C-alpha cells in the first residue's frame, strides 16, 4: 500500500512536470500564432500609374497580372485603375488624376480621342513619361506603344478563316465603331485579313459592317446577315463583344456549322463557344506580355531614357486545340 502510494506520487510528479511543460509550450505556441508575419518589402523605386480600358475583361485582368509580376521583378509600385465598364470619360479622369498625383510614369490604354492626346501632352509637360498599351495614340507625345501590329492580327485572322472554310467562303466583316480603335488600325486589320486570303480566289469579302452600340448591334447585324440572300457563310469580327454577340445569334438561329466565325478575344464566353465549336477561333494579342513589357519598358525609360517606340507582343491564336490552356489561365486570374 505504502509503496503503491509512493509510486503513484512519483508518477504524478512526472505527470505534473510534463503538464506544466506542455502548458508552457502551448502558451508560447499560441503567442507565436498571434504574431502575424509581415514580409518587409523593399521600398519600390518608382510609382507607376496604369489605366486600363475596363476591370472586368480577362484581357485587362491578365494585363494587370503581367504588370504586377513585372513590378515585383523590377521593384516598382503599380497603381492600377480602370472604369468598371468601357468608359472613356472615366479613363480620361484617371489619366488626369495620375498627372495631378505626379506619379513617376503612366501606362495607359487610349481610345481614339483628342482628349487623350491633350492629357498625354500635359503629362509630358509635367515630365511624366507615358506608354500606351493595346491601342496606340500615334499623334501624341507618348514614349512608346506596347501591343500588337493590327495588320498582323488581321493576317492571322485571315489564316484562321482559311482553315475554317477550307478556302471557300463568302465573308462578312464586322468592325466595331467604338472610340477605342482609330480607323487606321481598323483598316490595318482588314488589310491584313485581305492580304491573307488574297491567294484564295474562292474566298471573298462580301460586306464590311460597322457595329455601333456593343452587343445588341452585332446581334442585329448578324440577324440581317442570316436573313439576307447573300449566302454568307463566314463572319470575321474584330472585337470581343461583337464576337460574343455574333456567336449568340448563330446559336439562336440554329446556324452552327453553317456560318463560321473567326473573332477576337479570350473571355470565358468566347472560350466556351470555341470549345463547343460555335466559334472556330479567335486571334488576340498576349495581354500578360502587354502588361509585363509595358512595365519593363517604363523602367527602361526611367533608367536609360531610351526605348524603342513600338514593342510588338505578337499574336495569340485560340482554337479548339488549345482552348483548355486558356480556360486554365482564366481560372487562375479569377
Amino acid at each position, binding site marked *: 500500500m505504502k509503496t503503491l*502510494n*509512493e509510486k503513484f*506520487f512519483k508518477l504524478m510528479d512526472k505527470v505534473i512536470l510534463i503538464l506544466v511543460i506542455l502548458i508552457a509550450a502551448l502558451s508560447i505556441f499560441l503567442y507565436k500564432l*498571434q504574431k502575424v508575419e509581415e514580409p518587409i518589402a523593399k521600398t519600390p523605386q518608382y*510609382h507607376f500609374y496604369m489605366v486600363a480600358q475596363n476591370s472586368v475583361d480577362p484581357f485587362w485582368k491578365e494585363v494587370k497580372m503581367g504588370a504586377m509580376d513585372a513590378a515585383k521583378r523590377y521593384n516598382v509600385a503599380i*497603381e492600377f485603375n480602370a472604369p468598371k465598364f468601357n468608359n472613356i470619360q472615366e479613363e480620361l479622369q484617371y489619366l488626369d*488624376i495620375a498627372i495631378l*498625383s*505626379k506619379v513617376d510614369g503612366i501606362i495607359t490604354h487610349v481610345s481614339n480621342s483628342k482628349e487623350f492626346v491633350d492629357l498625354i501632352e500635359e503629362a509630358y509637360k509635367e515630365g511624366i513619361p507615358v506608354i500606351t498599351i493595346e491601342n496606340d495614340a500615334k499623334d501624341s507625345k507618348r514614349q512608346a506603344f506596347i501591343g500588337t501590329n493590327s495588320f498582323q492580327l488581321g493576317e492571322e485572322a485571315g489564316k484562321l478563316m482559311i482553315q475554317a472554310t477550307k478556302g471557300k467562303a463568302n465573308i462578312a466583316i464586322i468592325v466595331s465603331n467604338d472610340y477605342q480603335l482609330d480607323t487606321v488600325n481598323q483598316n490595318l486589320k482588314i488589310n491584313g485579313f485581305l492580304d491573307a486570303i488574297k491567294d484564295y480566289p474562292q474566298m471573298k469579302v462580301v460586306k464590311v459592317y460597322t457595329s455601333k452600340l456593343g452587343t445588341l448591334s452585332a446581334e442585329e447585324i448578324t440577324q440581317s446577315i442570316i436573313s439576307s440572300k447573300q449566302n454568307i457563310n463566314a463572319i470575321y469580327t474584330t472585337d470581343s463583344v461583337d464576337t460574343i454577340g455574333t456567336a449568340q445569334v448563330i446559336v439562336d438561329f440554329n446556324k452552327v456549322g453553317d456560318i463560321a466565325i473567326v473573332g477576337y478575344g479570350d473571355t470565358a464566353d468566347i472560350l466556351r463557344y470555341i470549345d463547343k465549336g460555335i466559334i472556330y477561333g479567335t486571334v488576340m494579342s498576349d495581354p500578360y506580355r502587354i502588361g509585363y513589357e509595358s512595365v519593363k519598358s517604363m523602367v527602361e525609360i526611367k533608367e536609360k531614357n531610351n526605348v524603342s517606340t513600338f514593342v510588338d507582343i505578337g499574336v495569340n491564336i485560340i482554337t479548339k486545340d488549345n482552348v483548355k490552356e486558356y480556360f486554365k489561365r482564366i481560372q487562375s486570374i479569377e
Partner: protein
Amino acid sequence: MQKDMWRFTGIRRKLIVYYLIITILMGITSFYSYYNAKLVINRLKSIFVDYIYLNNLNADVNMLETEVEKYLSTKSSDALLNYYTLYNKLQEQASAILNKKNYDQDGLMLKDIGNMIESLLNETDAAINAKRGRISSEYIAHFTRSNKISEYIKLYINNLLNSKLQEGSLKYASITKNMEFISYLNVFLIIGSILFNIFLAIFFTYRITKPLIDLSHLAVRVSKGDFDVRPLSIKTNDEINILAEAFNKMVVSIKNYIGEIKNQAEVEKKLKEQEMQNLKMRNILKEAELKALQSQINPHFLFNTLNAAAQLAMMEGADKSSEFIENVANLFRYNLKKLGTTVTLQDEINNVKTYMYILKTRFGDRVDFKVDVDEGVLDVEMPCTIIQPVVENAFIHGLEDTEKGGFIKLTVKKDNDKVLIEVIDNGIGMSEEKVRAILSADNEDLSKRHVTGIGMHNIINRLRLFYNTSAIEDVIEIDSKIGEGTKVTLKIPLMKGDKEND
C-alpha cells in the same frame, strides 16, 4: 534564525513550488485572455483610425472648397482667414502624407491624394490671387479646375474608404472568427486551468497532509499506550520524514524502557519472595531449635554423662547396658545437630534404627520393628531429623496405649523421581478430621512429648521449604483408618546437589 528565514527546503519549498505552479498557471491564463482582448481592441481601433482620418480629410477638403467659394463670391475676410487656416492645415497633412513611404495599393492612393491636395491648393491659391487681382476670367478657370481636383480627391478618398471598408470588413470578419476561436480557447483554457488547479490543490494538499495524518493516527495510538505499532515508513524527504523517523525511534525507545522496567519489577518481586521464604525458614528453624533446647536442658552434659555410664557399664561387664546407653547417647548426639544441616538418607535411617533399638529395649515384646530399605537410594540428601519424629509419632500416638502386638514398619523405596519413605503402624489410627488437621499444619500441641520436640507441623514445613514447594501433598501423604493403623508416606525428590539451592 536568519538562516532559517531563507531556507528553501522541505515542506516550505514544496508549498512554495505548489503555490508558484498554481499562480503561474492562473497568471498565464489571465495574461493570455488579456493579451487577446488587447489585440482585438487594437485591431478594431486600427480599422476605425483610418476611417476617421479619411473622413476628416474629406471634410477639410469640402470646407476648403466652401470657403474659397464664399470668398470668391463675397470677398469676406472671414472666409479668407478660414481659407488660410484650412490651407495650412491641408498643406501640413499633404506633406505628412507624402513623407509616409508606403507603397502598397492604399499607400499609393494616399500618396496620390497628398499630391492632389497640393495641386488643389495651388489652384485655389491661384484662384484667390486672381480674384484679388480682379482677373475674373482666370479665377473662374482656376476655381473650376480646383473643383475638379477636389472631386478627384473626394473620389479617391471614397475609393480609399471603400477599400479600407472592405479591408476592415475582412479584418473584422477574421477578427470575429478569430475571436470566436479565441473565446472558445479562453473558456477551454480557463476551465482547463481551473480543473487542473483544483486537481493540483487536492493532490498537493493530500500529499502534504497524508503523512501528517498517518503520523497523528499513530501518535494517538501511542498516546493511548499501544506501543505495538508498526514503524511508519514515510519517504517525503522533508520535515515530516524527520518527524516520522524521530517518532519511530521514540516509540521503540519507550517500548524498550517499559520492558526494562517490567523486568526489573519482576526480579525485585522474586527477590522479595525469596527473602520472605528465607525469613520464614529461619523462623521455623529457630523455633525448632528453641524447642529442642527447652526439652533438652543440657544435652552436652547428658550426652557426656551417658558416655561415662556406657564406659562404666562396659568395665563392669554389663555389655547390654553399655550398648543401650551408647545407643541413647547416639540418639542424643544426632539430635544435637543443627536442624538446618543436610544429611544423607543413610544417616536418617541409622538414627531411626537407634531410636527403635531404644524403644525395643524399653518396651520389649509390646512393640515390633521392621526396616525395609532400597540400598540404591541411601546417598540421597535430605534435611536432618525428619523420619525419627514420624516414627516417634507413630509410636506415641498409635501404639503407646495398646497392650501388645504393636508393629512399626519403615520402608524406603524408589518411585520414579522420588524416594518414598513409608512409616506404617497398626495402631489405633486417626479420624479423617485429625488427618486433615495434621496436614493443615497448624496443630502444635502434639509435639510436646517428643524426644526432640519436633512435631509433624515442623517436619512438613521444613520439607516444603527445603524442596521449595507449597503443596503439602508433594511432600507428605497420610493414610489412616481408626482401629487399623496409619501409614505416613514422605516423598523426597531425587535431586542430587539440590542443597546449593538453599
